[in-house]
């Protein structure tokens, strides 16, 4: 591609963006402390938190005004996802908004999906298009949207679950599309599959944003610990074996967050221009989040590995949340397919 194209590289947030961030940070501070996170581990879901979040408009904001929503941009949603990740909130918001937006694009989305009163789940995997599968939100989703061959289908089950215990503390369950009690085809063929791919890109971008928030929070906790923990008379945070890995985490946060926001901007404004960026953000953060969360635990030593340490809550989710979307290698290969085709065509044209 033309790397010297005259484009703006403006990552700055508007005042509206900053207000949105403040509102959601305050929301999660008030309603989703670490005790709330722990209390939801049995079910993977905090119903009261979800209802409060929807009452705040977090579900409806994601849907276009033409479909009855409030028409937020994906950049707005990325900012909310960062805050959700920072709080490791036990709510299936990312999956729900991606599924609902997809349903709105394919037509027929209902009001209960728009306002979040009935949860819609999504199969965020790229490589699976048929058969029984494990879905991160299936235990609490009232409806599921997934790909079944060349169809995009909306499924309803009379009995959901049961939830299977899992590392990410997600409301995860096995689903066999063939066993659905009600099945409607939302779309078929290349156009519908392209819309499904877009939902997968949105899921990857938002998950990357959430992981950036997650890493920033576990880094902040570890940095505070490193300031007050002493060895041989000095705070461990003044030792480069501790401070440099923390600096590396700060670098990951800055890069991953900005990349997710840039991917969101392109999805909003010029989806054909940089179709690889959402997967880029995901592949980067999926790899880095687990490493950073492990280092954050390590810095807190024996206290960090305790299940009572917040660090371990971040550790398990950092690894397992992205994995709900499948092997990141599938996303990496998706990126490669896009850029190899683009660069080959450009080289032939030159």
């Amino acid at each position, binding site marked *: 591609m033309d790397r010297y194209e*005259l484009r703006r590289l*403006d990552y700055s947030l*508007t005042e509206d963006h900053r207000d949105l961030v403040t509102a959601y940070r305050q929301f999660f501070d008030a309603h989703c402390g670490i005790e709330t996170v722990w209390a939801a581990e049995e079910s993977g879901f905090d119903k009261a938190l979800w209802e409060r979040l929807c009452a705040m408009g977090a579900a409806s904001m994601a849907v276009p005004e033409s479909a009855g929503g409030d028409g937020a941009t994906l950049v707005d949603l990325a900012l909310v996802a960062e805050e959700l990740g920072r709080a490791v909130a036990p709510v299936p918001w990312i999956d729900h908004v991606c599924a609902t937006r997809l349903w709105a694009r394919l037509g027929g989305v209902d009001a209960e999906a728009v306002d979040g009163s009935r949860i819609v789940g999504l199969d965020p995997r790229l490589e699976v298009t048929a058969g029984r599968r494990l879905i991160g939100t299936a235990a609490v989703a009232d409806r599921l949207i997934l790909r079944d061959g060349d169809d995009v289908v909306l499924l309803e089950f009379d009995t959901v679950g049961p939830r299977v215990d899992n590392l990410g503390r997600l409301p995860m369950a096995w689903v066999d599309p063939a066993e659905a009690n009600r099945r409607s085809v939302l779309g078929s063929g290349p156009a519908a599959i392209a819309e499904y791919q877009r939902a997968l890109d949105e899921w990857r971008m938002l998950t990357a944003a959430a992981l950036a928030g997650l890493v920033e929070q576990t880094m902040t906790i570890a940095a505070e610990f490193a300031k007050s923990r002493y060895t041989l008379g000095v705070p461990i945070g003044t030792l480069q074996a501790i401070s440099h890995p923390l600096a590396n985490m700060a*670098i990951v946060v800055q890069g991953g967050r900005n990349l997710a926001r840039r991917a969101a901007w392109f999805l909003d404004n010029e989806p054909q221009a940089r179709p690889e960026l959402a997967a880029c953000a995901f592949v980067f953060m999926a790899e880095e989040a687990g490493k950073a969360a492990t280092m954050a635990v390590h810095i807190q030593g024996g206290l960090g590995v305790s299940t009572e340490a917040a660090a371990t809550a971040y550790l398990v989710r950092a690894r397992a949340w992205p994995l709900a979307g499948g092997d990141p290698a599938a996303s990496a290969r998706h*990126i*490669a397919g896009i850029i190899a085709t683009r660069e080959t065509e450009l080289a032939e044209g030159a």
Partner: protein
Amino acid sequence: MDFSTVELDADDAAFHAQVREFLTATVTDEVRRRDRETGDNFDEAVHLAIGERGFLEQEYRTKSGAGFSRVRRRIWELEKRRVHTPWVTWGTTQLVAHAVEMFGKPELVAEVLPGVFTGEVRMCLGYTEPEGGSDIATCKTRAVRDEGGSGWIINGAKMFTTGAHNCQYVFLITNTDPEAPKHKSISMFLVPLDTPGIEIQGIRTVDGDRTNIVYYSDVRVDDKYLLGEANGGWTVLRGPLDAEHGAVAADADGLADPAIMAHQAGFMSAAVDAVAAHVGTPGPGGTRLVEEGSVGYRLGRSAARLEAALSTPGIFGRVAQAQTMREIGPDLMDLAGPASVLPLGTAGAADGGAAEYLYRFAPLAGIYGGTLEVFRNMIAQHVLGLGKPNYSPPRR
């Protein structure tokens, strides 16, 4: 937030076309070939031609509002990169010229600045010492008052004075009070490089560039060449150092790079794009390498890490770029196969030599203008609030 293509009015569009035409005609294949051979990262004819068009002064005056508009500055920057215009010596010249303008005596400013704008005066950085390292305040090069008290005598040696052999002045850190605390012990001079007692020796680096070690033996300079106050060198040095470290926030109009050294990060983009084209081209059997899982995975992961590095702002980005070069350079070479080891410009080089150059350049990117450890210290101390790093006690 805005990543859109910039809409240009008719004047700016004409400027864009004019700049591209001028640079394409000036920075020729011959210039690029010569640059690779000498490793100079400077071409006098190109530099003088740019000066003659007034572009040096325009670029230099952007910040003060008397030169290029922000958008023209951005156009100029991108088009220079497009044709691989040698950049290092002009970069150091600008850093020093700003310090001279701010701290130099009026007669020195008058001596230096007009030549900076024509291109005839170039300036380099005399910071690091053979026994020093990244802490430039631990300086052993001494400047002492001469017998008459109207000038100075300098003795010492400096490493990595890149471009010295193409420059007229060196921006030199000296120690003028060994007894004082280190930030009150240094003085800055702008030393004419044709002064007797200066010896420049070339050093070639693994990326193909040339830098220098410069020896100073009883070098006598007039007081005119002292910048700022004696023992007040730290004040003079701060501005150029912050600029070189990239510790200066990008403006919010999106017409600047999010981090410093975007030019160098461009080597990484070029390597990813070249390797993508290589593995996307059908081979003899009609299959494309990228269809193979391990190829697709490594290319996609490399692109992801590149895009993350390019998105990382400020001093964070400074580390991310250099670190990412080291991480993805080897994978990109593997993807290009054995022919990736053929040097830049060789017939048959799989990716035009882009990946092997990235591999050789990556070590440089992690040390010059401050090592990655310096930047990590800065992030840890100033962003995370972890305090100054603790070191073992100094050797007595």
